[in-house]
C-alpha cells in the first residue's frame, strides 16, 4: 500500500491543476488499494475500454457512474479477473492490488481478496446458511464451528441476521429481493475480502431496500474498500467518497464526489449529472 504521492496521484483530467490540489487535500491521508493504469479491454475485436487509469483509495467508497454500455461492468470485472471467464476477451494494461499485479497473483486468491456483488441478486439454490458458507467451504477456510461463527458474523455485517436468524436453513429463495441482495453481500463478506465490488446492486430494489444497502455500505467502508457501479446519481452522491464518470469506454473524470457533482471540470460530466443525456 503506497501513499498517494506525486508519482501515483489519483488520475483525473490531465493538466487540471485544481483537480490535483483538491484531491490531494482530501485523500492524502488515505492509502492506495487498487491502482489501474492504461487499461484497454476488448471483447473479441471490439475495444470497449480505452486507456483507463484510476486509483482506488483504501477503505473508501468509490462510485463509478455513466450511461449504460459505457464499460462500467467490464471495468469492474477486470478488478478481480472475472473477465477471464468470458471467452475471447483481452485485457491490456495493469491492475495493481496493494502494489502487486493481479495477473501475477493466484486467481483464486485474487477473487477471495476482491469480492463481487452482482446487479441481479444471484443466491445459490441452497439454504441461507449454505449460501454464506459457500466461499468458506470452497476455500477450505475453517472447520464446522468456525464456519458457523463466520456465517453469523457475515449475516450481521450484511444487516440481515435479525431477519433470518430463526430460519437460516431455509432456502435462500424464500427471501425478498432486498434480502437476497444482502445475502449475496453476506456471502461475499464471509471470505473476508479486502475489496468489495458491487455492480448496480440496488437497481432491482425498492427505495427502502436500497436505503438499507446504502447504510450497510457506509458501515462496511470502515473495514473494506468498496467500488460501486451505480446508475443512480443520488446514490453515488450519498455514499461515495470518490466518483468516476465513464463515457464510451473512457474515464472522463475522477474526483472527490462533491466536486464531481458540484463543480465538474468537464462538460460531459456536467451534462450527464444534470441529466442532459444518458
Amino acid at each position, binding site marked *: 500500500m503506497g501513499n498517494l504521492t506525486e508519482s501515483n496521484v489519483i488520475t483525473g483530467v490531465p493538466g487540471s491543476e485544481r483537480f490535483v490540489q483538491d484531491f490531494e487535500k482530501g485523500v492524502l491521508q488515505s492509502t492506495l488499494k487498487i491502482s489501474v493504469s492504461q487499461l484497454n479491454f476488448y471483447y473479441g475485436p471490439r475495444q470497449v475500454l480505452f486507456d483507463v487509469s484510476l486509483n482506488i483509495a483504501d477503505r473508501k467508497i468509490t462510485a463509478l457512474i455513466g450511461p449504460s454500455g459505457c464499460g462500467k461492468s467490464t471495468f469492474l470485472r477486470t478488478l478481480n479477473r472475472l473477465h477471464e471467464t468470458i471467452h475471447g476477451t483481452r485485457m491490456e494494461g495493469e491492475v495493481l492490488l496493494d502494489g502487486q499485479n493481479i495477473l501475477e497473483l493466484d486467481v483464486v486468491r485474487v*477473487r477471495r481478496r476482491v469480492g463481487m456483488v452482482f446487479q441481479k441478486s444471484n443466491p445459490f439454490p441452497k439454504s441461507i446458511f449454505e449460501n454464506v458458507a459457500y*466461499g468458506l467451504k470452497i476455500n477450505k477456510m475453517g472447520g464446522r464451528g468456525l464456519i458457523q461463527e463466520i456465517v453469523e458474523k457475515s449475516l450481521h455485517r450484511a444487516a440481515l441476521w435479525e431477519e433470518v436468524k430463526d430460519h437460516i436453513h431455509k*432456502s435462500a429463495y424464500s427471501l425478498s429481493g432486498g434480502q437476497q441482495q444482502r445475502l449475496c453481500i453476506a456471502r461475499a463478506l464471509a471470505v473476508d475480502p479486502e475489496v468489495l465490488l458491487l455492480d448496480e446492486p440496488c437497481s432491482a430494489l425498492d427505495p427502502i431496500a436500497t436505503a438499507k444497502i446504502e447504510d450497510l455500505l457506509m458501515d462496511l467502508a470502515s473495514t473494506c474498500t468498496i467500488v460501486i457501479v451505480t446508475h443512480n446519481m443520488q446514490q453515488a452522491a450519498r455514499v461515495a467518497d470518490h466518483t468516476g464518470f465513464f463515457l464510451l469506454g473512457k474515464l472522463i473524470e475522477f474526483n472527490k464526489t462533491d466536486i464531481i457533482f458540484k463543480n465538474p471540470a468537464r462538460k460531459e460530466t456536467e451534462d450527464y449529472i444534470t441529466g442532459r443525456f444518458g
Partner: protein
Amino acid sequence: MNFRRFTALLACLGVGIIVVIVAFLAVYSWPAVRLNGWGFLFDNSWDLGQLYGNPITVHGQQILPGAHYGILFLIVGTLLSTLIALAIAVPVGVGAALFLAEGMPPFLRSWLSFFVELLAAVPSVVFGLWGYVVVIPFLGQRLFPFMAKWFGFIPFFGGSTGSGYGLLTAGFVLALMIVPLIAATLRDALVSQPAALREAAVALGASRFETMRTVLLPATRRVLIGSSILATGRALGETMAVLMVSGNALNYLPHNIYTPISTMASFIVSQLDSALQDPTGMAVRSLAEVALVLCMISIAVNGLARLLLYYEGRQRASVA
C-alpha cells in the same frame, strides 16, 4: 373442442392405453398365473415339457407333461444387467453432459451435442449388431480375461470369463444406449442454468470444476434422477440388443459378471416361437405372464423413483 379439453383427452388416452395393456396381459395370462403360483417368480426352471406328449390336467388346467414355468433367472438377469448399465451410464452420462455443457468452446459444443442426440436415435438392433461383431470378440478374448486376472479379488469379478456373451456385455451395450439419453437431458438442464450462478461461484474463488460439483450438479439433480428413471425403463425393456449379446442363458443364475444371462424382454422374443408349439397354449400364456411381471417391475421402478423425487422435493420445500 378447446385446447385444454383436447390435451386432457390425450392424457386420459395415455392412461387408458396403459390400463388396457396391463388388463389384457392380466386376463390373458390368468390361467398361467393360477397354475404357476408364486413359484413363477422364485423357481429357476423354464421347461415347456414334452411337446409331443398328451396334455395332462393340473389344477384344472391343461398342460404338457413335465411343463414347469419359473423365471427367477430372468428377473435376476434383467435387474442385474440394468443395474450394471446404470452403474456405467450415470457417471459417464454426467461426465459427458458436463463436458458438453461446460468443457468446450461453444462452436464445438453444438456439434458434439448434435452427435450425442443422434446417438440416442440409433435403433437398438444396430447397437446389438455392433456388440455382436466388434465388442464381444474384444471383451471375450481380451478385456474379460484381463479383468478376471487383475481384478479377480473383487467379488464376482473372478472366475471363468466365457466367450464374451453375458451379463457385463449386456450391461455395457445397454449403457451405451442410455448414456446419450442421460447426457442430452442433463446437458440441456446444465446449459439452462443462469450464468449468474456460475459467476457467483467463480467470484467466490471456485474453479470451473468446483462450480460444476457444488452448484450446477446440485441444481440439476432432479433432472438427473428423472432422466435416469427414463433410462432405467428403457434398459429394463430393451429386447434386441440384449438378445444379441447376453448369451441367452436358460435356467441358471449368474455366478460372476461374465456369466451368460437372459432378460425378460429378450426371452419373450426368443421363446415365442417354441412356445407357440405348445398345443395347450400354456407356454404362451406364461410368456404373457413374463410380460406382466416386466410391466409391474417397470411400473414399480417408476413409482419408486417418483416417490424419491417427491421426497426430495419435499425436503427442498421444507428448506424453501
